[in-house]
């Protein structure tokens, strides 16, 4: 359980730091790296970074949007279309980031297994 928490935190911290230099896929790099350095087992390999980035992106987008009365979020939630609900848009944002992070973490895990084997 401890490893899960560590991975979760490391993923978020790395994602925040990398976002300063890299585009959106910095979350994939962050999750990949944390999967290698804080190895997890089974479903947690995917879910720890998934939840970490989901939380990060939801909270960040909430902070940006709530300061502006969700003006743009409401419009984008019509565009996509998500019924104009800004919270659904935040959730979708989190899911997108989480999915990318989770998948690259699985790859990270496989990569570290390969490296270990040799």
């Amino acid at each position, binding site marked *: 359980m401890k490893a899960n928490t560590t991975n979760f935190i490391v993923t978020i911290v790395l994602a925040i730091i990398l976002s300063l230099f890299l585009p959106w*896929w910095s979350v994939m790099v962050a999750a990949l790296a944390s999967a290698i350095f804080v190895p997890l087992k089974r479903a947690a390999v995917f879910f720890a970074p998934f939840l970490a980035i989901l939380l990060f992106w939801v909270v960040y*987008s909430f902070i940006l949007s709530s300061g*502006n*009365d*969700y003006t*743009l979020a409401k419009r984008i939630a019509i565009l996509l279309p998500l019924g104009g609900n800004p919270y659904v848009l935040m959730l979708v*944002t989190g899911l997108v980031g989480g999915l990318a992070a989770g998948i690259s973490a699985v*790859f990270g895990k496989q990569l570290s297994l*390969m490296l270990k084997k040799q």
Partner: protein
Amino acid sequence: MKYFKFVLSFVLTIGIFFALNTKFGSIPPIGKFLNPYSGVWQNETNESTTGEITILGLTDKVTVHYDAQLIPHVFAQNDLDLYRAQGYLTAKHRLWQMEFQTYASAGRLSEIIGEGALNYDRQERRRGMVFGAEQTIKKMSEDVKTMAIAEAYADGVNSYINQLDPKDYPVEYKLLDYKPEAWSPNKTALLLMYMTKMLAGGDEDIENTNALRLFGKERFDLLFPDFFDITDPIIPKETDWSFVDVPQTPTPISYIVLDSIAETIDKPDPNYGSNNWAISGEKSTSGHPILANDPHLGLNLPSIWFVMQLSTPTHNAFGATLPGALAVISGFNQYIAWGETNATRDVIDWYKIEFNADRTKYKYNNQWKDVTIRVEDIKIKGKVSYKDSVLYTHHGPVVYDKNFKSDKELAGYAMQWAGHIPGNGQKTFLELNKAKNYDDYANALKYWVAPAQNFVFASTEGDIALWIQGMFPNKWEGQGKFVMDGSKSENDWQSFIPQPFNAHTKNPERGFVSSANQHPVDEAYPYFVFNDGYETYRNRVINDFFNSKEKFSIQDFKDLQNNNYNLKAAELMPFMLEVMDTSKFTLEEKEIYNLAKAWQYNNDMTEVGPSIWSAWWTILYDMVWDEFNVENTAMDSPFTYQTIYLLKTKGDDAFMDIMDTPETETAKDLFRLSFSKAVLRLSEWKAENGDFNWVNYKGTFAGHLLQGLPAFSRFDIPIGGGKNIVNATSENWGPSWRMIVEMTSPPTGLGIYPGGQSGNPGSKYYDNFIDDWAAGKYHTLNFLQSSEATNAIIGTQILIPSN
């Protein structure tokens, strides 16, 4: 198994990256688009209106005060700094729009949108939009000062672009996944071409030719007379033209080319128009002249206008600017006020071109003349470029040939357009912004070539005036109504009407000047002018209003701009209701009939009369002109006024007959038949949408510039009015800027437009004027007299030079 898992997870990782980083059709690259640190969430912000910004190339400090409407009041120390700041500030608030409009103008939408825009792009290239912009730049470069200003503006825009991170790009860039490119004076020229196309890009020569061929000259003249039986022209009828000493071009013996053409290029919405007027001090309750302008254009978001105050120690101008163009376009300064309406005139003519066998030469005066080839390279997103060779003659581009909307191997149709004449129109506005009196105004106009405009004027000195300015060919009688033979020099434009003989009026006896896109002049004007789709309703309502009493106030001006009287309906509907056979009405028909009878002909929001009229008239009009529905033939039905005139005076004409029925219908029959259909349409509409009050039935909306994206548009705007009504608000066009200026010293200005100062859909300033605009309210324009902030100012930004 390990390898398999490894490979699978690797592929999945690459796959998810690709899926989230790529644009699929209209779906943006979703990872790029939604991530909170560079995606749309970064656009969830309001404008900054404080602080200091360093701008390359400024020579002195520029103070920018923002008021509560987010109007920037710019105080610079010299012209170059002023226009550099205008470029910077316009980009700051409207970057995507100003760039997108120039892409649209240049036929470059395929670069952004992909192959779907290719036909549009080809059409714009073939229309010579880029060619025209090049002519403008050529002329502009001859004037060192104008060019320097245009370059300063471009540099200002680029200062803004260069300081942007991808996360700061306007949301539309993220949606379409591209980035802004550098601005240049070429883009300003393209924006001017965009306006020229919008306002002077229409003609009916080909459609008229088809009608003439099908119906013969006598019938054509009945349907399309040069002048209607009534005219209430812009320049008063009693004007003395004896000063004009250059005659109209003598009419040669010329034969019309009676070809049949199936399809023509897109024309701008013929409903675009505008109102402007000014009253003298004697006619004004306050003793000061008052001027008003409301250009009727497409209702879009971001709005076509951006309001600014632009001042230096030597001049101080305020009003509506066009993002991409320099200076104030419709506004005022300390001494004068001005505004424009479109001066529709036939400035596009078509010539049939006969090529030699390899299409390198064309016939002209019994000789072969060289064709110039212009290769238009159209870039397409995700595809190889499309190269379109457009052949140019001395008339202009051969728009239609075997490669475009025509199947003639060795012939084509070339376009001669005033929009291709080199002109430095930008200088007109730079000079108007500085003008101090009538002479300055009249001089500024001399540079204006196209699109021809009715420039209204009033000054604190007490003058009012109106010039119809543009470069107009001095045509022979009838020239350019139909397609002409391009091989005969007598069909060329022989000369232009000398500028001083352009129709104008200064301080007319009647005490007011006005224009509403009607006939510029009556038959007494010594040059050939024919009805080119002129307005016949708004002008009469406006002129009747100003003839109705002695003196007028600001309130009268507001009332007139918001006037919903439907003169068109009032001229036909009582007649239809009276003569129509009412004997076999259904219950529903009886009900609608009674509602129609009760209507007082105001297109107010809550009325049902305007909806009944609108449904009825649309159906009736199509019924009358079923003869114009000819397969594979480009046709334009006759104008509204003439249609109503014929319905009332020639009700048994053969045109009234519906060709598909064995009976011979008259106007009276058509009234009855179209009424039944209208009732049916209204009840269907009601079943689907609820009450057909005018406001619901009309459904005015302001659509986002990008294909009207609903998410960034405003629907069901609560406003009355309509087509051919002074308050011209229709479904998607209307008064795009309403301005009233009283010529006190300094002038007092009121203004509002259906949009907001910000181009960012995430800003509260994106559409915040719409409700007040719809309610007929005006905002006081805070005309600052010095760079001192007043209590109307909510924030001040200082632009400072970088050393």
